[in-house]
């Protein structure tokens, strides 16, 4: 096995899988273009071929020299020692930090920005390990106020309103209040 680690094998598998999947999908748009000899698939397939080739080179490098950084590589220093997990709790906490924002993004369409944001801000602080209720409440309100003040009141930026009751009604109330404020000043 040379100097291969499990992550080296996984990486090689990941890149080759991407190359194979995308190559297979490329047949779905393999149509000729009258004015261009290489068609719509020429460029992506060259990239996929190179990707597979370089992935094998990467695998061979890891096999023969290990996966530590090459000398003289810029920006590699910070990642030289990846963090080792010692308990399942750490996996869970990191997983929460990764998944929460994605859940927030997925909820934007039904829930909207105005209702979903304060909950997300508080949850992300908890996921970061913050447990002081007062700190979480104060900072959630502060961040929410800054965002509403800057983007809704000053810059008039359109933000997702949601399409589900009662979230849509909350957004409508916020926007109505904003219009009334505009009329007052």
């Amino acid at each position, binding site marked *: 096995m040379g*100097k291969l680690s499990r*992550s080296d094998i996984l990486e090689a598998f990941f890149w080759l899988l991407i190359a194979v999947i*995308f190559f297979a999908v*490329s047949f779905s*748009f393999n149509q000729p*273009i009258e*004015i*261009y*000899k*290489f*068609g*719509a698939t020429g460029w*992506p397939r060259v*990239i*996929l071929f*190179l*990707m597979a080739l*370089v992935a094998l*080179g*990467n695998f061979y*490098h890891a096999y023969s*020299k*290990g*996966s*530590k*950084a*090459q000398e*003289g*590589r*810029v*920006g*590699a*220093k910070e*990642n*030289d020692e*990846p*963090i*080792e997990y*010692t308990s399942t709790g750490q996996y869970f906490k*990191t997983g929460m*930090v*990764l998944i929460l*924002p*994605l859940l*927030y*993004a*997925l909820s*934007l369409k039904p829930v909207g920005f105005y209702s979903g944001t304060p909950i*997300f*801000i508080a949850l992300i*602080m908890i996921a*970061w*390990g913050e447990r002081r209720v007062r*700190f979480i409440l104060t900072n959630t309100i502060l*961040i929410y106020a*800054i*965002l509403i003040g800057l983007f809704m009141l000053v810059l008039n*930026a*359109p*933000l997702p309103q949601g399409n589900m009751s009662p979230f849509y009604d909350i957004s409508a109330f916020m926007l109505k209040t904003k219009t009334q404020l505009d009329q007052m000043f």
Partner: protein
Amino acid sequence: MIENFLAGTATLFGDPFTIGIFVFGVLGGMLFGAIPGVSMLTLAAILLPFTADLSPAQGVMLFAVIYCTGTYGGAITAILFNIPGAPENAPTAFDGYPMTQKGMAGKAVGAAVLCSAIGGVASALVMMSATEPLAQWAIMNIGPPEIFALVFFGLAVASSVGGRTIWKGWLSVLLGLLIATIGQDPVGGINRFNFGYSDLAAGIAFVPAILGFFAVSEIFIQAEKNVSGKYSAPKFNVDFPSFLELWAHKIAVVRSIFVGFFCGILPGIGATLAAFMGYGEAVRWSKNKSEFGTGKLEGVISSETANNAATGAAMIPLLALGLPGGALTAMMVAVFQMHDLEPGPLVFYNSPELIWIVFAAMFYANLSILFVGLIETKTILYLLKIPFQFLAPMILMLASIGAYISRGLVLDVIVMFIAGIIGFLLRRSGYSIPGIVLGLILGKIGEQNFAQGMQMVHYDLGTYFSRPICTILIVAGVLTLLKSLHSAFFQKSKVT
């Protein structure tokens, strides 16, 4: 030229409302550039509809000023938090962030302020004196083969400076190139890799992808450190670099001005490639190559001088040929069109006052970076004192808004967080995020120009090499790749 410049200055500072717009542009660009999670593009996207109420000169001038100051502002977050405000600030983080970790944030930010101003002012001066002849030269000598060759060279440089190994550097660039193929192909308009989602027909938008790869992945990296108890707050420091420290890098500054200007003048290339090439050349010519990436002042200087030197140059293809060099200059085209104008050679004859207000505003905006930037910097360094438990949700929220506003699609916010997760996993494994982003940005430009070039030369690759600029760039790119391939096989790893 001087008469026109003075006339532009008089118009700019003769009207209080125009002065107000100028000041707003300077402060807005710096502020949005320097807030992690949003960028000058966020501000520009929000302001675009409002420019309909301004005069054409005021509208274009506002965007030109935001472009200059926002390009500098993005360096602040790159240095302080390892979150480049824009792709053109990515190479600044290579050395800027390690300097912050060593307690030298003040020196890095101070160098960025000064070099951004020098690069920008030099570029503005050349732009004012030579826009028309340079545009003529570019028309005669630069075609799709040259642009493709420069993209190839730029990607070769980018792959050789990022990632834990050369293989990972190349894989990063190739991933970016692959992501760029999602959406319609640039020749026939055929949908590629959209997996049935009609929203993906327009491709992956730059802004959410960039925010995800840079800002969100950095938050995740810091969160992981926090979870494992390895998080340490960056060290606070406001010591600026001395004159002698900066003077020692005068050659790097001059070299980066040339590199930045050359990249900026080419349509579609812009400041991002300029910054990578400026940084790459600094590494190439240095006697202490191994010090780059560990907190070397020259890295910050080279990258920041080059990207600001490209801002003035990017106005040349925009104003003289009507070809935008990046996302922000593309928005400027929209400002022109809102006022029934088309940027191009005729603008110089039909609206000379507009051109000279823009030129004068860019010159003064770059000067402002020096004075306002120094004051702003002293304040903004205090961001380092804010607890990350507060900054993290703030940055994530700002990034969400920034991603959503550019197209008004929730899909973009989802794409941003997916890019953040991918970026986090790839960074843990030693891949280069700037490499991915550069591949993403240059992929479409590269493919489009390759296709046009191939059609031009009737698919005869030999004709490519009858064009001197194209030949030089391709040979330089191939040599760069061969050199890194040699090091991949014959150089030792740090620890094996």
